[in-house]
């Protein structure tokens, strides 16, 4: 049988047509039947935390309710992009972890969960006030807060002791004094001043607030960055950088300070619990001489950054009731408790039920993370949640104000830059 070239051409066209039709017809048929939910999360710094959901929580729920819960992990730093894609296309996972002010940004795309939030609060001793700062939009809860990934001072007790400090300095000025001594002794500080996601905001916003400065008033309109308080904070930061830190901090992103601390290049930084966690795993001797403390006080008090991990339900979810039931089940102490435990306070609960939980006794050095919740706020505070707030973060306005001062520009100049940028950002929204 001689196959002509004509025939094979025709075959090609037909094959294409059939397979396209097949793909179009086949896909929806499979989806309709399965009874399952999908939760999206950023890959946790504490791997057992992700494993616990997949192996224990999801399995328990399937056994109990017959609903399979998938746990979709995305790489660190890409969660916002994935949430954006899912919300814009109204497809993808049913539930997602969120942070910062995303409950506001995606307001219309998330389900109102005020009812289960109230039930969970009642069941578990009530919510911390700071929990609401990031999830309540126009009086409605758009997410269920899970835990705060606090950013605190990580320091080497042995080197501080050599410099004459038994306790962590209580004020920024005392910390500067300690840093000068430690740098002279060959143990400089290292605080991120570059374009990272978290470790830069983690100390620069609290520093700004503790000097009594802020970007915007509570009305969300009046720009007040150009103040004597800001100038004092900037002046302090410049000195702090020049006299205590390694030069490289200006270009750091979030991984650098962990690397520098664990390789004994620096004696103090601002970070989440991850340094101590990693040290205990890989450098047990070093772990013995690491401690964690609340941020120092400034002239106007002590502040911390709020860095919440919350769970939201996408409005495109077919069965919103099923998703709510799952979140409600997840946040009951029988489930949430062991999940918090597995990460040993890396996620600090926003529920008072856990204030004296046994996990705080496992590693007492983590206790300051619990106490810091009372003075924690989102970047942009005290203004309400807004788009401008996101833009300020994405443009690194406050971070770069400090960074430019550290690399040699005058205080007046860097504040004027920040003021101009903030005016443009807040006017437009």
């Amino acid at each position, binding site marked *: 049988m001689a196959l002509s070239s004509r025939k094979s*051409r025709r075959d090609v066209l037909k094959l294409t047509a059939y397979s396209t039709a097949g793909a179009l017809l086949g896909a929806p048929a499979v989806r309709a039947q399965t009874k399952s939910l999908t939760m999206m999360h950023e890959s946790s710094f504490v791997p057992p935390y992700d494993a616990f959901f997949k192996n224990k929580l999801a399995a328990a729920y399937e056994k109990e309710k017959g609903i399979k819960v998938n746990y979709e992990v995305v790489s660190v730093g890409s969660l916002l992009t994935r949430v954006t894609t899912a919300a814009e296309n109204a497809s993808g996972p049913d539930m997602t972890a969120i942070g910062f002010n995303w409950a506001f*940004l995606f307001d219309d795309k998330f389900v109102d969960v005020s009812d289960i939030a109230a039930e969970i609060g009642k069941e578990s001793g009530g919510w911390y006030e700071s929990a609401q700062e990031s999830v309540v939009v126009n009086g409605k809860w758009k997410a269920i807060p899970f835990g705060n990934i606090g950013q605190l001072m990580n320091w080497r007790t042995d080197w501080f002791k050599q410099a004459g400090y038994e306790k962590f300095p209580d004020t920024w000025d005392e910390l500067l004094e300690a840093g000068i001594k430690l740098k002279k002794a060959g143990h400089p500080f290292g605080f991120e001043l*570059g374009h*990272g996601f978290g470790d830069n905001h983690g100390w620069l916003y609290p520093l700004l607030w503790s000097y009594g400065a802020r970007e915007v008033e509570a009305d969300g309109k009046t720009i007040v960055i150009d103040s004597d308080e800001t100038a004092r904070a900037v002046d302090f930061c410049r000195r702090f950088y020049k006299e205590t830190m390694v*030069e*490289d901090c*200006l270009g750091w992103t979030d*991984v650098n300070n962990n690397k*520098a601390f664990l390789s004994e290049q620096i004696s103090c930084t601002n970070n989440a619990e991850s340094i101590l966690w990693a040290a205990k795993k890989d450098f047990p001797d070093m772990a013995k001489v690491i401690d964690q403390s609340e941020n120092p006080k400034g002239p106007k008090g002590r502040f911390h950054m709020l860095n919440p991990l919350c769970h939201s339900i996408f409005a495109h979810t077919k069965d919103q009731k099923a998703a709510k039931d799952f979140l409600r089940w997840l946040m009951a102490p029988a489930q949430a408790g062991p999940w918090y435990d597995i990460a040993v306070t890396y996620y600090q609960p926003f529920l008072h039920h856990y204030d004296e939980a046994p996990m705080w006794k496992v590693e007492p050095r983590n206790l300051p993370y619990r106490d810091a919740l009372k003075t924690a706020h989102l970047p942009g505070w005290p203004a309400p949640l807004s788009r401008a707030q996101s833009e300020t973060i994405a*443009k690194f306005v406050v971070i770069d104000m400090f960074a430019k001062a550290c690399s040699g520009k005058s205080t007046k100049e860097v504040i004027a830059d920040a003021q101009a940028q903030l005016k443009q950002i807040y006017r437009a929204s």
Partner: protein
Amino acid sequence: MTAVLAPALTRRRPPFSLSRWVERESVFSWLMVALPVAFLVALVGYPFFYGIWISLQDRPVAKPGEFVGLANFIRAWHDPVFRQVAVNTIFYTAAATLLKMVGGLGLALVMNQDFRFKNLTRALLLLPFIVPTVLSTIAWQWILDPAFSVVNWVLKAADIADPGPSWLGNPHLAMFSLVIVNTWRGLPFYAITLLAGLQTIPPDLYEAATIDGAGRWGRFRYVTLPLLMPIIFIVTMFSVIFTFADFQLIYVLTRGGPANATHVFATYAFDIAMGAGQFGQGAAIALSMVPPLALIILAMAIYMRPSKS
């Protein structure tokens, strides 16, 4: 299935037969091209025009857009960071492209000689280009970290500097470092393409030039370079486009820091669109790349036109 359908389509011979029409050369060729064209329209054309449409709107994430005309572009123009980004991008592109051009040409000339392990060397040369950028950039992250840097280690061991330069912490050095990493990654592309060009130059031209009394430089200047010009032009054009729109390398190493010293169009547009959720502004910033790119390419096309002679 074919056996059943094929006779059914060809048995009767109506005035118009679809299968015959399809098989006409003029129609069939278009049908074959249609798929790639549809692919390009869907994946390049549509996003491009959709990008233009979005850039004319105030379009926050998860909210409907509102037409604002050129407001996003005007806003970008008044944004000091945008201006810095423009300067950074142009500097980054110019410096990296120049280094790649000179280095690539030199490398190609060397590779064109006969020597032992020539083929192995040529294959190894491609490595920086083959390794996924994100992975090789992470290796560079270690090389550029003063605490772990081999460079700083050597400087320290040789008693030249301690602790050595802060490659990504100093604003000027950071830009310099990025240009070097980009050059490292892009050099093989230049070298291999130019090498292919070198091999198409007929040896008799060199012989003729030698007889006419041309030395090494003369042969390069009057034979190699003119004949290589069209290829240099194409490679440079590609390189300018890729470098101008570079994202991965900068995003992994500095994310635009310190204090925007290394922010370029692509990273800034991404931060604004995805980080801040301002699609309109992000699209406007990304589209701002188009006119300068078009101008550069036009200028190059005029200046380096191969048919000048």
